[in-house]
C-alpha cells in the first residue's frame, strides 16, 4: 500500500471513534439502540487497524510513515526566530501500529463485554458514547507525531477517564474517585506542561523527530545536560500521573468505582499504558540520569503496591494494585534501558490484565455486584469458563512458562540482572525479583479465595451462574492471546520471535554520549542503526538470561506454593501470620497510609489557601461584579424596546411573505419522485438550449 492509503486508513481509524461518540451522545436520548452504532464503528476500527497492521508489519516493516501539515507558521508573524512552525500529523511506525491493534482489540472486546455487563443501565447509550470518546483520544496519543497533540489527547484521555470513573455519579464514592483521579493526573500533567515549556522555548517545535534531530546536533536546553535531564524528568511526570506511578498512584485503586469493563479498558490495558507508551516514544531524549530516575520510580511503584496487594480483600482493588505494580515493571524496564521488553510487557500485560478485569467483571456480575473476595469461594464449579480463563491470566501474570507473561517478564528480569551487574544498582534487580514472587503470591491468593474452597455466602453462591457468551467469548479471545505462540515460536525466550527480531528495534539515543548510560554507547567501529548497545551489554544480558529464568521461576514457584499452603491446604493460618506481623500487616492493609499523608499535608494546605481565596472572592470580586450587572440591566432595557418594535416587525413581515410563497409552491409538490424527474429532464434540456446559444 502506498503512503497515501496508509494515511487515509489511519485517519479513519482515528476519527471513526469520534463519529461514534458524537452520534451516540447526540442521538442517545432518541434511539435506545443507538449504542449498536458505536459497537459497529469500533468493530470497523478493529478491522481497519488489523488491515493497517497486516500491510505494515507484513510488507513495510522498516518504513516510518509520517504525514503532517503545518498548522501554525509563526515565521510570517514576524518573530525573531528562524523557524517557528507548529506541525500536526500522525506517524505510523511499528510501535504505533502494534499499539493501534492492542487498543482497538481491547476496546472492541470491552464494547461487546459491556453490552451484557451494563444491561439495564439507564444511561446505557451514554456509556458507549464515553467509550467511543476514550478510544478516539487513545488513538490520538498512539498516532501523534508531536508533543502538542500528545498533550491535547493526554488531557482528553483524562477527561474520558473522569467521565467513566464517575459514570455512576449517584454514588458519592464514584464521583469522589473521579475527582481524585482527575486531580492526581493534573499534578502529573503540570510537570509535563513544564517539560513541554522548556522543550518549546529551546527547540521552537513540537514535532518529536525534529526535537530529536536538534538534540543530536547538540542543541541543549540552557546549554546544559543537567537541564536536558530535568526536561526528561518533567516530561516523565506526565507518565507518572497517567500510569499511576508513585507517588501519584493513589487515584488508580479508587478509580475501581467505575464499571468493571471500564477498569479493564482504561485502568488496566490502555490508558494507564499511555504513560509507558510516552516513555517509549520519547525514549531517545532521556539522559542516563533521567533513565535512572525513571528506573527508581518504576522499581518503587512495582514494589510498594505489590506489598499492598497482599492484604487487600476487594477483588478489583487487588487487581488495581497489581496493575500499578506491573506498570512499575514496564517503567523500570524502560529505565534500565531494556526498551524492547518494556514495550513488550506493555502488550502482553494489556491482554492478560484486561482479561483479568473482564473475568473479575464476570465474577462480579455472577455474584450480583459483590466484590469482597472473603464472601466468595468455590465459584470454580459455577463459572467454569471464567475460572479457566482467570487461571490462564494468573499463570501469565505470574510468569509461568508457555505464557506471554513469562516471555516479557523474564526479559525484564534478565535486563535488571544485567543492569545490576553493569552499574552496581543491585537494589533494582532485587526489587524486580521480589515483586515477581509477591505477584505470584497475591494473584494465586486471589484465585484460590475466589474460585476454590467452600462458598462463604451460600445465597449468592446458589444464584451464581456462568455469564452469557457476549462476556465469555472476549475472555476466551484474551486468554488465547496470553499464550506464547503469538509472540515467538520459542516458548523460552522472545529474542528469537518475530516481534523482537523484525518489528521492534531499540531506537538510538540522541543525547550526548557523555550523558548516556555507559552501556548504551555503541563501540565506535560498529555504529550501525541496529546496534545501539555496547557489546558488553549484549553479552551480559545474554548471560543473565538463564540465571534470571531459573531465579524467577524459583521465586514465583515459591510464591504460588506459599499461596497454596496458606489458602488452599490451610497448613498455616493467614490470621496467625497477620497477628504476628501486626504492624506490617496494618501498614499494608491501610495502603502505607498514602491517602492519610496526602490528607494531612497537601489537602490541608489547599483548604487553608482556598479559605483565604473564598474571602477575597466574596468581598471584593462580587462587589465589582454586582456593579457591572446593574449597568448591564439599564442598557438591556433600552435595547429591548428597540427589539419589540423594529426587529419584530421585520421578522413578522418576512414570515408572512414566505408563507404566501409557500402556499403557491405547495401545489407543485406532488410527492412523486417521477414527476420531479420529468421536470428535471425538461429543465436540463432548457438549460442546455439556453447555454448553447
Amino acid at each position, binding site marked *: 500500500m502506498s503512503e497515501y492509503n496508509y494515511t487515509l486508513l489511519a485517519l479513519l481509524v482515528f476519527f471513526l471513534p469520534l463519529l461514534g461518540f458524537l452520534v451516540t451522545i447526540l442521538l442517545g436520548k432518541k434511539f435506545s439502540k443507538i449504542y449498536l452504532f458505536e459497537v459497529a464503528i469500533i468493530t470497523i476500527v478493529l478491522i481497519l487497524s488489523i488491515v493497517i497492521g497486516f500491510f505494515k508489519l507484513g510488507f513495510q516493516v522498516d518504513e516510518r510513515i509520517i504525514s503532517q501539515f503545518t498548522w501554525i507558521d509563526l515565521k510570517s508573524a514576524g518573530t525573531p526566530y528562524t523557524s517557528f512552525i507548529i506541525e500536526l500529523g500522525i506517524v505510523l511506525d511499528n510501535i504505533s501500529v502494534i499499539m493501534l491493534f492492542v487498543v482497538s482489540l481491547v476496546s472492541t472486546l470491552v464494547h461487546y463485554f459491556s453490552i451484557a455487563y451494563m444491561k439495564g443501565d439507564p444511561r446505557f447509550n451514554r456509556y458507549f458514547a464515553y467509550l467511543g470518546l476514550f478510544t478516539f483520544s487513545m488513538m490520538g496519543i498512539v498516532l501523534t507525531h508531536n508533543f502538542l497533540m500528545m498533550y491535547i489527547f493526554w488531557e482528553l484521555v483524562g477527561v474520558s477517564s473522569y467521565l467513566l470513573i464517575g459514570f455512576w455519579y449517584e454514588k458519592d464514592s464514584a464521583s469522589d474517585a473521579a475527582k481524585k483521579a482527575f486531580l492526581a493526573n493534573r499534578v502529573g500533567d503540570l510537570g509535563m506542561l513544564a517539560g513541554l515549556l522548556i522543550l518549546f522555548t529551546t527547540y521552537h517545535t513540537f514535532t518529536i523527530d525534529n526535537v530529536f534531530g536538534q538534540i543530536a546536533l547538540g542543541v541543549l536546553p540552557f546549554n546544559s545536560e543537567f537541564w536536558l535531564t530535568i526536561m526528561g524528568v518533567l516530561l516523565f511526570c506526565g507518565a507518572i500521573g497517567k500510569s499511576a506511578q508513585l507517588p501519584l498512584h493513589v487515584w488508580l485503586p479508587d478509580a475501581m468505582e467505575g464499571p468493571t469493563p471500564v477498569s479493564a479498558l482504561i485502568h488496566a490495558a490502555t490508558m494507564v499504558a499511555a504513560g509507558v507508551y510516552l516513555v517509549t516514544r520519547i525514549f531517545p531524549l532521556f539522559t542516563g540520569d533521567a533513565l535512572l530516575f525513571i528506573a527508581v520510580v518504576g522499581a518503587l511503584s512495582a514494589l510498594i503496591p505489590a506489598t499492598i496487594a497482599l492484604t487487600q480483600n476487594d477483588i478489583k482493588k487487588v487487581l488495581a494494585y497489581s496493575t500499578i505494580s506491573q506498570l512499575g515493571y514496564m517503567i523500570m524496564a524502560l529505565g534500565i534501558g531494556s526498551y524492547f521488553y518494556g514495550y513488550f510487557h506493555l502488550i502482553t500485560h494489556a491482554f492478560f490484565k484486561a482479561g483479568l478485569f473482564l473475568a473479575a467483571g464476570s465474577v462480579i456480575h455472577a455474584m450480583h455486584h459483590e466484590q469482597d473476595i472473603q464472601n466468595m469461594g468455590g465459584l470454580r464449579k459455577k463459572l467454569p469458563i471464567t475460572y479457566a480463563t482467570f487461571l490462564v491470566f494468573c499463570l501469565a501474570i505470574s510468569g509461568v512458562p508457555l505464557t506471554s507473561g513469562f516471555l516479557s517478564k523474564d526479559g525484564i528480569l534478565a535486563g535488571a540482572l544485567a543492569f545490576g551487574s553493569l552499574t552496581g544498582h543491585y537494589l533494582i534487580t532485587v526489587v524486580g525479583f521480589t515483586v515477581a514472587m509477591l505477584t505470584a503470591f497475591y494473584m494465586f491468593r486471589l484465585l484460590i479465595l475466589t474460585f476454590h474452597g467452600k462458598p462463604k455466602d451460600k445465597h449468592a453462591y446458589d444464584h451464581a451462574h456462568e455469564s452469557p457468551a457476549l462476556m465469555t467469548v472476549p475472555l476466551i479471545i484474551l486468554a488465547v492471546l496470553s499464550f506464547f505462540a503469538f509472540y515467538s515460536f520459542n516458548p523460552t525466550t522472545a529474542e528469537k520471535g518475530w516481534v523482537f527480531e523484525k518489528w521492534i528495534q531499540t531506537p538510538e539515543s540522541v543525547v550526548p554520549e557523555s550523558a548516556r548510560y555507559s552501556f548504551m554507547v555503541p563501540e565506535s567501529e560498529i555504529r550501525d542503526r541496529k546496534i545501539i548497545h555496547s557489546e558488553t551489554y549484549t553479552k551480559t544480558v545474554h548471560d543473565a538470561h538463564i540465571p534470571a529464568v531459573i531465579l524467577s521461576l524459583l521465586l514465583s514457584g515459591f510464591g504460588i506454593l506459599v499461596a497454596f499452603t496458606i489458602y488452599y491446604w490451610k497448613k498455616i493460618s493467614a490470621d496467625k501470620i497477620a497477628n504476628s506481623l501486626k504492624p506490617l500487616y496494618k501498614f499494608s492493609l491501610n495502603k502505607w497510609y498514602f491517602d492519610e499523608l496526602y490528607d494531612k499535608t497537601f489537602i490541608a494546605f489547599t483548604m487553608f489557601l482556598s479559605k483565604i481565596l473564598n474571602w477575597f472572592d466574596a468581598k471584593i470580586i462580587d462587589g465589582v461584579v454586582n456593579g457591572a450587572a446593574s449597568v448591564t440591566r439599564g442598557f438591556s432595557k433600552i435595547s429591548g424596546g428597540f427589539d419589540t418594535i423594529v426587529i419584530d416587525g421585520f421578522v413578522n413581515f418576512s414570515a408572512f411573505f414566505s408563507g404566501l410563497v409557500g402556499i403557491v409552491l405547495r401545489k407543485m409538490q406532488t*410527492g*412523486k*419522485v*417521477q414527476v420531479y*424527474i*420529468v421536470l428535471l*429532464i425538461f429543465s436540463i434540456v432548457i438549460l442546455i438550449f439556453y447555454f448553447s446559444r
Partner: protein
Amino acid sequence: MMEVGLQHFLVVSAILFSLGIFGVVTRKNAVMVLMGIELILNAANINFIAFAKYGNFGFDGQLIALFVIVLAAAEAAIALAIVLNIYKNFATVNVDEINKLKE
C-alpha cells in the same frame, strides 16, 4: 458509415441512458424502477470504459466501472430488501400508491 470509434460507443450509452430514465419515470412497479436505474448505471459504465480506452487514461476508468458494479450490487440488495418490506406493509409495490407520508 464510418469506422466504429469512440462516438459510436457514446451514442449507444446515451440511448441506453435515456431509456433508463424513461423506465424510471414511467414505470409504476418499484422493481421496474430499479431496472431503469441499472440501465442508467450500465450506460455510465460504458462511458467510463470507452473513455478509458479512447482517451488513453490507463485503467482508472475500468476500475471506476468496477466500483460502480459493486455499488450497484449493494444498491440492488438494499433496494430489494426495502421493496420486500414495503410489500409486507402495504401489500403493493407500486411507487405511486405508497404515499403515506403525504397525509
